[in-house]
C-alpha cells in the first residue's frame, strides 16, 4: 500500500522526494537511464507520465516533452511495458501520471489490471476530478491501487473533505494557480493553504510545484510530506544531462 510505504519512509526522512519523467522523452532508453539515476540519487517515489497529445494542465516544458515523445512514436503499450520494467527493477513505488483519455481508450479496468500486474502503486490523472471518476475509483480500488487526487488553493473546504474521501496514497497539493513549471512564492499564504489541506485529510501531502534548491526543501519540511520535483529536473536534464539531474537530487537531500 502506497500510504503505508510513505509513512514508513517518513519515519526515516523529514520529507520525501517525488520526481517525474515523461516516458519516452527524450527516448525510451534515456527514460530508463533517468529513472535509474533518480533512484540511485535517493528519490522516494516517482511519477511516470504517459504522454498525451493534449496535456491541458501541463506547462510548456512538460508539454514539449509529451509532444517529443509522441513524435518519436512512443505508444501507450511501450509506456506500460516501460512502467512494468522499472517497477520490477527499482525498489521505490512508481505511479503513472497521465490524462484520462489514455485510461479511457485503453479501458479503465484493463489499465488498472495492467498496473497491478506490473507492480505500479497508483496514478495521478489531472483531468479527472472525483465527480467523473466513478469507474476509475472502482477499478483502482479493486486492484488496491492508489488513486491520487489533487488539491488546489481554489478548492473549498468541503470539497477538500470530499476529495479526501475517495483519494488514496497521498494527496497532490498544487501550490498555486497555473500550470506545471511556474514560479511559486513560498510564503505564509502557503502555510495557511497546507494547514487547510492537512485538516481535510489524514493522507500524506505532496506539494508541487517549483522546488529549485535545498532551501526550498528545508522550507517545506514539516509542512508537506512529499516534495515534488517535476519541471526543474526536466530542465536540468535538458541542459546538463542525466548526471546533472542526479547531482541536483542528491544536493536537495544533503
Amino acid at each position, binding site marked *: 500500500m502506497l500510504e503505508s510505504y510513505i509513512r514508513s519512509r517518513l519515519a526515516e526522512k523529514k520529507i520525501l522526494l517525488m520526481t517525474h519523467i515523461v516516458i519516452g522523452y527524450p527516448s525510451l532508453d534515456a527514460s530508463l537511464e533517468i529513472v535509474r539515476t533518480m533512484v540511485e540519487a535517493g528519490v522516494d517515489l516517482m511519477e511516470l507520465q504517459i504522454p498525451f497529445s493534449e496535456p*491541458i494542465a501541463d506547462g510548456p516544458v512538460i508539454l514539449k516533452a509529451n509532444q517529443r515523445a509522441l513524435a518519436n512514436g512512443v505508444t501507450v503499450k511501450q509506456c506500460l511495458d516501460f512502467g512494468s520494467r522499472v517497477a520490477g527493477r527499482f525498489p521505490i513505488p512508481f505511479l503513472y501520471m497521465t490524462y484520462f483519455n489514455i485510461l479511457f481508450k485503453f479501458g479503465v479496468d484493463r489499465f488498472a489490471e495492467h498496473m497491478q500486474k506490473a507492480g505500479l502503486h497508483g496514478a495521478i490523472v489531472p483531468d479527472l476530478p472525483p465527480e467523473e471518476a466513478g469507474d476509475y475509483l472502482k477499478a483502482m480500488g479493486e486492484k488496491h491501487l492508489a488513486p491520487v487526487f489533487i488539491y488546489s488553493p481554489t478548492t473549498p473546504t468541503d470539497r477538500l473533505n470530499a476529495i479526501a474521501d475517495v483519494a488514496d496514497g497521498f494527496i497532490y497539493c498544487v501550490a498555486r494557480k497555473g500550470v506545471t513549471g511556474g514560479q511559486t512564492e513560498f510564503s505564509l499564504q502557503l502555510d495557511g493553504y497546507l494547514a487547510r489541506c492537512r485538516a481535510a485529510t489524514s493522507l500524506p501531502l505532496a506539494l508541487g510545484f517549483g522546488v529549485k534548491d535545498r532551501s526550498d526543501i528545508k522550507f517545506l519540511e514539516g509542512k508537506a510530506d512529499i516534495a515534488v520535483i517535476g519541471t526543474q529536473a526536466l530542465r536540468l536534464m535538458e541542459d546538463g544531462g542525466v548526471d546533472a539531474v542526479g547531482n541536483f537530487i542528491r544536493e536537495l537531500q544533503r
Partner: protein
Amino acid sequence: GYYGDFGGAFLPEILVATFDELERVYTEARNDPIFWHDYEQLMSSYSCRPTPITFAGNLTRHFGGARIFIKREDLNHTGAHKANNVMGQGLLVKRMGKTRVIAETGAGQHGVATATMAARFGFDCTIYMGEVDVERQRPNVFWMEQLGATVVPVTDGTRILKDAINEAFRDWVTNMDTTHYVLGTACGPHPFPEMVSWFQSIVGKEARRQFMEKEDRLPAKVFACVGGGSNAMGVFSGFFEDDVELIGVEAAGRGLDSGAHAARLCSQDASVGVAQGYKTYFLQNDDGQMRETHSIAAGLDYVGVSPILSDLKEKGRVRFEGATDSQVIEAVRLTMRKEGVIPALESAHAFARAFKEAPQMSADEMILINQSGRGDKDIFTIADAFDDPKWKQFIIEKANRYHA
C-alpha cells in the same frame, strides 16, 4: 453535466471552483427572464438580430425540388453566428465582475468576435491562435490586434485550433480570478456545451418563428454545418420538438475514405474519448492520441464535436452527413451565382448537402440551410481554392511594392 453518455467536466482541480462559479452565474442568468431580454436587446442593437430568412428562389428553380430557405447568420456583426455566443458570454462576464477575456480561435472568426465583444464591453483580451493559423489567417489577426486584443501564436503541438484551446486553458488555470475563457463553440467542459448552445438557440428560435409567421408551417429539413457544433445546435434547437429532420454536415475533406477529413459523427474514423475537458467523439488513434484533421474550411477541422450532438446522433435525432472540399467549392460557386450570397466555406458544407437532397424532395416541401457566416472573410482561401490567377498576380504585385 451530461448529455446522454457525453459531456461531463474533466477539469484540472484548480479550475473546478471557476466552473462552479460559471455554472452558478449561467444558471442564474438562464432562470432570469431579464437576462435573455437584455441579450436579445443587445443583439438587436449591436448586431442585426433577428437575422432574416432569405428565400433562395433561383436555387429552388435550379434544383427543382424543395423550396430552399437560408438563415442569414452571415449578416451578424463580425459576419457569423459567433457573435451570438460571444456577446452572451460577455454579459455573463459582466455579471461575474471579471475584467479580462481569453479565447481560442482557429479560422479567426471567433477571435475577431471575442476581440469585438471585449472592445465593446471594455475587457482586456488575449486570443490564442495556433501558429499555423496565425500565418494562414493574417487578416483576422490584423483585425483582432486593431480591436485591441493581444494575439498569442501557439507554437506547441500541431499549432492549430486544439492547441490554442489547450493554451487558453493554461492561461485560465493561472488567471481565473480576473479572467473568463470565452470558449467559441458548444464543446469543452460543462456548462460550455449547454451554455453556448443556449446563446446560439436565438438562431433556431427566430427561424422557427419566422417560418410560422411567413409560411405558417415548418421546413421538412434543416441543414447546418458541424465543426464544434454551435451553429448547428443553435438552429436545430428551434426544431427539436417538431417533426423536422435535422441534418448536421461535417467536413468530409478529401473524402471519408481518405483519412484527410474532419468527420467525427458521419465516419468510422472517430471514437469516443475524453479530451479538452469533455467526453465526445474524437478523431483519435487507438491509444487516444488526437489525429490530424483536414478540411478546406478552417472552422470545421476540429478533432472533437459538441457532446450534445454526439448524444443526438446516438439518439437518432440528428442525421450526420459529410461534404467534401470539392463539393463545397461547387456549392459556394453556385450559391454566389444564383443568389448573390457568399457562404463561408464552413457554411457551404450545409449548402452542399442540401443541394444533394433538395432535388429528391417535393415542391411543397421546404428546407432551411443555416448560413453560419459570410465567405468574403475567406478571400485568401477561396481565391486559392478557385486558383484565381489574377488574385495571385495582385498579391505578387502588392508584395513587390512592400519590398520596394
